[in-house]
């Protein structure tokens, strides 16, 4: 029964509010990422927990309130505290970070804790570590595969090869490897002779990331044509992986190496008057949010402040909304689309822009399939031990896609797209492809 105190016995101490008060600096500035001040902003309202797609399907996962602020508080009092292994069950969707009403930096806490866990507590000889490192360094695999794309496409989805990968590396044989394009975007770009439009004051530097270079160059080509249509000079600087799969696997050293190249090349473009745009929402999110939180590289804040999602940049700087209102789409993309907003688009406040932009576009209908996470979260769903969890998280999205009018999917994120296709069999397109179909003859 109740163990409530007898209220008549309650005798609080009178606060000594009359005395002079000198605030103390509890956390002096230091060079390391000390996340404890952020932990102290958490008042445990649990908003983050209600947004966690993993905690919704797995009660063994303690959720973001524990992973973030509670874990950092534990570290505060115990220097020997070890990061809880459950950090590797976090899918890095970072919805917790976006939802927190107190501005607790959950993304930075999760990424830093994951990095510490991999550095100090994970065996570098374990199959898991080796597999995660291969998955995280997708760009390297894609680079080699793109030299012999047809051969790679055949072997990567060849039954016996996939069986062996499942057995040796724990990569689930249910998944289909993405097709490699026979010509990469960068090959197309140099064959084309680079930019067709030159401008002194309207320049963008395109961060195409790995996927639209090696797998879906049609998205990258659409971006180039749209920006040239609006009078922009497109630059395509040398670049490496944005680092997203590396953050998600706690491999911050790999991520930093790539980040150094990206920061150097892209800040050079910014010097020339360009803003940076990305067609993949995880890439823009990495450059904007994670870079300044995790690395201290010269120019990194400048890069974050000049990076945009490609569609967002058009909405801010061009008449794309008005042009789309007056346009119509016919032919191959005259479709009804089931649109899914990637978590990393949501993190940047972009979850509604496709719905909004295409609302008055004749010839197409775009329906939002709701708030659920697709569940693949980059490399997360590519691990045998997480495959079922990934599909369970995605089940709500699959259901909503089946219920929607359209039978073609739409999303900005390449791995969400592969999950959408995997769960429903729908073909999936990028909003840039639809803008291209509407505005460019």
């Amino acid at each position, binding site marked *: 029964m109740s163990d409530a105190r007898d209220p008549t016995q309650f005798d609080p101490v009178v606060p000594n509010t009359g005395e002079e008060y000198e605030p103390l600096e509890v956390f002096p500035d230091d060079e390391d990422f000390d996340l404890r001040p952020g932990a102290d902003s958490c008042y445990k309202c649990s908003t983050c927990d*209600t947004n966690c797609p993993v905690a919704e399907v797995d*009660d063994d996962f303690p959720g973001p309130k524990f992973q973030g602020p509670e874990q950092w508080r534990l570290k505060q009092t115990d220097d020997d505290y070890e990061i809880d292994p459950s950090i590797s069950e976090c899918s890095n969707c970072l919805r917790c970070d976006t939802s927190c009403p107190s501005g607790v930096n959950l993304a930075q806490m999760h990424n830093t804790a994951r990095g510490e866990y991999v550095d100090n507590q994970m065996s570098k000889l374990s199959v898991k570590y080796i597999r995660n490192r291969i998955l995280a360094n997708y760009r390297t695999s894609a680079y080699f595969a793109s030299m012999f794309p047809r051969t790679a496409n055949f072997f990567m989805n060849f039954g016996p090869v996939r069986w062996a990968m499942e057995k040796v590396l724990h990569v689930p044989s249910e998944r289909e490897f993405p097709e490699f394009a026979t010509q990469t975007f960068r090959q197309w770009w140099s064959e084309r002779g680079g930019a067709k439009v030159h401008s002194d004051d309207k320049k963008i530097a395109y961060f195409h990331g790995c996927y639209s270079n090696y797998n879906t160059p049609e998205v990258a080509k659409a971006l180039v044509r749209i920006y040239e249509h609006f009078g922009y000079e497109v630059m395509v600087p040398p670049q490496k992986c944005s680092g997203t799969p590396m953050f998600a696997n706690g491999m911050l050293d790999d991520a930093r190496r790539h980040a150094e190249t990206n920061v150097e090349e892209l800040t050079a473009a910014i010097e020339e008057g360009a803003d940076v745009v990305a067609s993949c929402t995880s890439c823009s999110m990495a450059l904007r949010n994670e870079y300044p939180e995790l690395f201290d590289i010269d120019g990194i804040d400048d890069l974050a402040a000049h990076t945009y999602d490609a569609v967002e940049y058009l909405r801010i700087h061009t008449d794309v909304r008005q042009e789309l209102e007056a346009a119509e789409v016919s032919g191959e993309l005259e479709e009804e689309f089931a649109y899914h907003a990637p978590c990393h688009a949501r993190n940047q*406040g972009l979850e509604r822009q496709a719905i909004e932009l295409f609302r008055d576009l004749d010839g197409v209908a775009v329906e939002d399939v709701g708030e659920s996470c697709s569940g693949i979260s980059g490399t997360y769903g590519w691990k045998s031990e997480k495959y079922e969890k990934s599909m369970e998280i995605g089940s709500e999205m699959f259901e909503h896609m089946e219920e929607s009018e359209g039978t073609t999917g739409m999303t900005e994120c390449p791995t969400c797209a592969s999950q959408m296709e995997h769960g429903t069999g729908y073909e999936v397109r990028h909003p840039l492809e639809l803008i291209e179909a509407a505005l460019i003859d």
Partner: protein
Amino acid sequence: MAIESDVLVIGGGLAGLSSAISAAREGADVRLVTYKQSTLRQASGLIDVLGYTPDGEGPLTDPYSAIPELPDEHPYRLLGEDTVREAMSMFDEVVDTYRGGHTDTNALLPTYGGTVKPTARYPDGAAAGLASDDRDLLLVGFEAMPDFDAPHVAAHLEAAGVPFDVRGETIQFPGDLQDDAKVTRYAKLLEKNGPVEVRGRERGARDALVERLNPLIEDEKRVGLPAVLGDADAAGVRAALEAELGVEVFEVPATPPSLPGVRLEDRLFEAFDEAGGNFESGNPVVSFDGQNRVETVYVDKQSARIPYSADQFVLATGGLVGKGVESDREHVYEPIFDCHVEHSEDRYDWFDEAVFGDHPFAGFGVDPDTELRPLDSGGSPEFENLRAAGSVLGGHDFAAEKSGSGVSIATGYHAGRLAAQEAQ
């Protein structure tokens, strides 16, 4: 270049959504920007209009009849009784999963603490729990969810003198969930009848729960559970349980994090979407351009400032909890437009020494004219095209009066409507 609309609403809680929906229904092109998730997730999901007078009289039977007696500066007095009624009618049209609109009279509902709370609207899912209903009641809690201690709640209700017998029981939720399992985990399992392991066998969570509840029910015709019965399809979960148990099932309105609050938020965003509104979240409004009129506000995205221009603006950023009203050791202020917030210079006057005393801070906020435009210290509107709604308004102590939802809906409705009319 800027992102443009007729009306721009800043804030995505109950007040912001009410004003956005109200403006969209008037035919305006409306955009809503919200920084983080709102305090709806920390709210019970009940819609209170007025439970107690500022002097503590109550629980009130009829909230509307008390409006003329409220202090002059109270938001309800500025709007008038009729506008509050119209706003509640809009809420009833928009949110068809709530009840209570058939009468002016407050309903009385049990809470997680075992108190009985006066409220004007309540979710379908709480309806069978009315304290005015004289049917006996069984409350059942789950061991791993200490927030809801059913025997304790039952004892409190008995002590409050409810007109029925009430018992409380605690059971283990099937599947032996972890102690800190999230409310969303319970909701998902019940909605999908998801697999749980019971005595070595895999069962549907809902089926297994029914088996545990059945033997507990004696003569009661209604059973109350923690508010975790589903998320997107709460009605379906309840119907399935009722069909199996042969009694009415209800949720006791929750403590944070609150699924009834989440469901209400989802429904309001859906309604705004249906009305053709645009919205975006995750980034704060940090500054603005304009002298007598607000011309443009700037949304901060990783230190890039994105301009949003509109003809009319609504400030619905919340109060002290929602961070629409901020304070430091010297001042209390409204952080975006720096609208005047009346407060004593001596911060020791901001609170009362008694914990449940009459705290001035509870009423801190901007003071508006009858059009809900915030006034400067001289009593003139700060800006001709900026209106405020919800907890950012001063002049009321929603926690003591139980008026938070009603003030948000009524001022939101009014601000949105006026903004839309002016913009067209």
